[in-house]
């Protein structure tokens, strides 16, 4: 008995239902909670599409970090909600928007149904060249060898986004600590969890990072886990967010990109091109880049969730 179509069908229905619900529901808090659930179900869809790396990323970032970010915002914005809800558009605007959005969906659906057969793919080329990287995970090979530039630029995106977030700080708090202050409840459950979980989380993160060379996993997923552990410790009040003026924070942010750039430039004399790896050294170099990136990603993601400096340093 093949249950797969049933599973896929119900998954698609569920995903669409939750998506529509997050749009339709009145209460923003409910909507963002719905979005976190949506992210987790989408991760299942990624598993069904045989993209385990993407599934892990979607679950960690789409469901996890984005969820935390939106939920925190929804709580803070709650008092304004009813005021802004008054700006709701007239029914004919809604109808027009629905028709147009439907037209876009319809066009996309037609395109999906008429995609060429057999599908073009770069899988054979990846298979042909993956040996030279020494990696077993094709996705990691694409991310760190064939299209390393994208990955480098994406690390830059994270840094730029954080700079942009920091730029929003009120002048008087510049250089201070991001986010609100969380008080430690010595015997609270959250503090208990924040003491128990991070050691486990760090072990799991290192595992996810390490297997990423050959199996699904890698620096993003591991970095996200580390960020989550740090955020947990901060929100439980076990530790405080560092001040953004500190040099080590800034160094931590750019270490990943800097190591990437240095190894990239070293490739010019030793391997004949920027971002190329010398024969036989590809895998260790890639692991070094990934390790540095993982730490930078973890710090950047956590600070992105926490927002601009909102407190003086000495508090």
């Amino acid at each position, binding site marked *: 008995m093949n249950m797969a179509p049933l599973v896929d069908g119900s998954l698609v229905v569920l995903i669409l239902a939750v998506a529509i619900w997050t749009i339709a529901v009145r209460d923003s808090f409910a909507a963002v909670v719905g979005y976190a659930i949506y992210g987790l179900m989408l991760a299942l869809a990624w598993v069904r599409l045989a993209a385990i790396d993407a599934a892990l990323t979607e679950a960690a970032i789409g469901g996890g970090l984005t969820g935390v970010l939106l939920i925190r915002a929804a709580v803070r914005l709650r008092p304004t909600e009813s005021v802004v809800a008054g700006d709701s*558009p007239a029914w004919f605007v809604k109808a*027009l*928007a629905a028709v*147009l*959005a439907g037209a*876009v969906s319809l*066009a*996309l659906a*037609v*395109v999906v149904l*008429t*995609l*060429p057969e057999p599908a*073009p*793919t*770069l899988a*054979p*080329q*990846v298979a042909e*060249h993956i040996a030279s990287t020494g990696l077993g995970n094709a996705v990691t090979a694409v991310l760190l*060898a*064939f*299209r*390393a*530039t*994208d990955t480098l*630029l*994406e690390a*830059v*995106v994270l*840094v*730029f*986004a954080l*700079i*942009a977030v*920091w*730029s*929003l700080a*009120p*002048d008087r708090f*510049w*250089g201070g600590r991001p986010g609100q202050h969380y008080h430690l409840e010595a015997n609270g459950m959250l503090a208990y969890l924040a003491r128990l979980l991070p050691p486990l989380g760090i072990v799991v993160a290192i595992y996810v990072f390490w297997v990423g060379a050959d199996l699904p996993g890698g620096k993003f997923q591991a970095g996200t886990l580390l960020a989550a552990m740090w955020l947990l410790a901060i929100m439980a009040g076990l530790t405080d967010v560092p001040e953004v*003026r500190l*040099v080590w924070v*800034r*160094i931590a*942010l*750019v270490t990943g*990109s*800097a190591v990437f*750039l240095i190894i990239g430039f070293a*490739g*010019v004399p030793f*391997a*004949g*091109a*920027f*971002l*190329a*790896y010398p024969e036989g050294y590809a895998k260790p170099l890639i692991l070094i880049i990934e390790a540095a990136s993982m730490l930078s990603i973890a710090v950047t993601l956590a600070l992105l969730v926490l927002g601009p400096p909102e407190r003086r340093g000495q508090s």
Partner: protein
Amino acid sequence: MSALATLIPETTTAGGFLLVLALVLPLAGVFAALILGGCNARRVAMLTIPLGLALAVAIGVELVQTGQTVIYLLGGWAPPLGIALRADGLSAAMLLTTTVVLLGVALFARDDFETPENLREARAPFMFWTLLMAVWGALNAVFLAGDLFTLYVALELLTFAGVPLVSLEGHSETLRAALRYLLFALLGSVLYMLGAVLLYGAYGTLDIAILAERVRPGMLCFAAVALMTVGLLAKTALFPLHLWLPPAHAGAPAAASAVLSALVVKGSWFLVVRLWFDVMPGVVTFSAAQLLGGLGSAAIVVGSVVALRQERLKLLVAYSTMAQIGYLFLMFPLAFDVSGNGPVHGFALAGGLLQVISHATAKAGMFMAAGLIYAALGHDRIADLAGVARTMPITVLAFALAGLALMGVVPSGAYLAKKLLLDAADGSGQWWWTIVLQGGAVFTAGYVVLVLASVLRRRSEPLLLVSRVSRLSELVALALSAGSLLLALAALGPVPGEFVSSSFAPKEMGVLLVVFLGGSLLASGLSRRSLLGAAGANAGVMRRIAAGVGESFELADGVIRRWQFASISLLMLAILFGGALVWGAPPS
């Protein structure tokens, strides 16, 4: 498919490494500024931008000497598996323009964004210099990347660097403008990304050069082009998708406005050019190009009229940017032949490029001048600018020269651009664009005259200045404006000399006179107060009608800039573009 891939034997060319340096230098600058912190951010910017200028020049020289596209295969991997950096004439020109304008902005803002001595690091100066390099790095990536996904990442970099420049001062109004900008830009980039995904699904590559060989007209390509085009238009703020532009550009500090207006909107414009002329020349159609040109014309009319209605100088300049963006899209229809199927370029592409360069320099100069006036007076109410010309002659001269350059007076770059486009309109039999090209200058003259009439007015009591402006800043504004005004002389090399006549030829003088007269009429008719200062003293019927027209344009603009209207327009445009592509496609 794999057989096709081998058709393009691409290798890194001799000067290719320069492209890597041009890509990495600004990013390294951002990192260095972040770590060194404080007043060092300015030092880093002051050091890297001249270096970048040297790099841009070197790339240009390399290009001219070898006569072929400079290419670098990153990691040694050739597309479609790898990513190539490529610089053709278009990229090289944009790289050079960007660094020149950035250098000007950096010199202009040297004193404005100085870390106070009692602080180790202050937010606004530190952020300004870091973001300046961030914008630069993002733009360089846009100009050089040869891959649709890398370009998506570059576009996002540009957005993330541009948005905080808008809200640098932290007023709630600019924060709101920045949020509208960000949300609309995100919608734009996700639609762009959607188009790229579809193209990969059909052709198995995101590389521009390989796609250009593989794409065939069909449902999928039409959908992709329509989605990507409107996505990019949203980021460029072409009418009617300009909801965020006026408040964002007017609310930012002058130096930031200059960057946003002169450079940031050009990034997505550049990608539309790439998409239409390099990737999809066989897919885009005459009718779709007419639609694009039509939007451009509407932008010119609405932007200019609403600019005339403004009471504040910076808002006036921001609306003038909206109009000038319209100009940049006139080259699209003119690159087509009425009878032909695909774009034929001619001089239209050169004209458009020249327009973008002259606009970048002139608009930077204009925003700087407006900013200086604001800084000196503590306000920028156009009605109260009397006496400014006497107190700040250099600044006013910079504004005037920038205005002349935008109007297309001989020998400005815009003049030569207009000539080239008029020639293209003539050659392709599209007389209707001639009207837009000529009429646009009258509109531009309108708001330039409006401002000049105000600043040149005499003042009975002495003008009180709240702060002294730096002479260096004034000179930089003047230099950029003057550069734009003299651009045609520099551009004469690649263009036949017959396009430029002497500035004192009777024909040119006649056109200039007509433009000025028309502009003055528009200004006196449409602006809120009469040109001569006595508001409403002799309000004739004509003036009341004109005021009514102006008011209705303003109202219309207010409606168009509402979120729902703009986003619905965006969707409608996507469908219209799709339709224009299907309808105009050659029968297969």
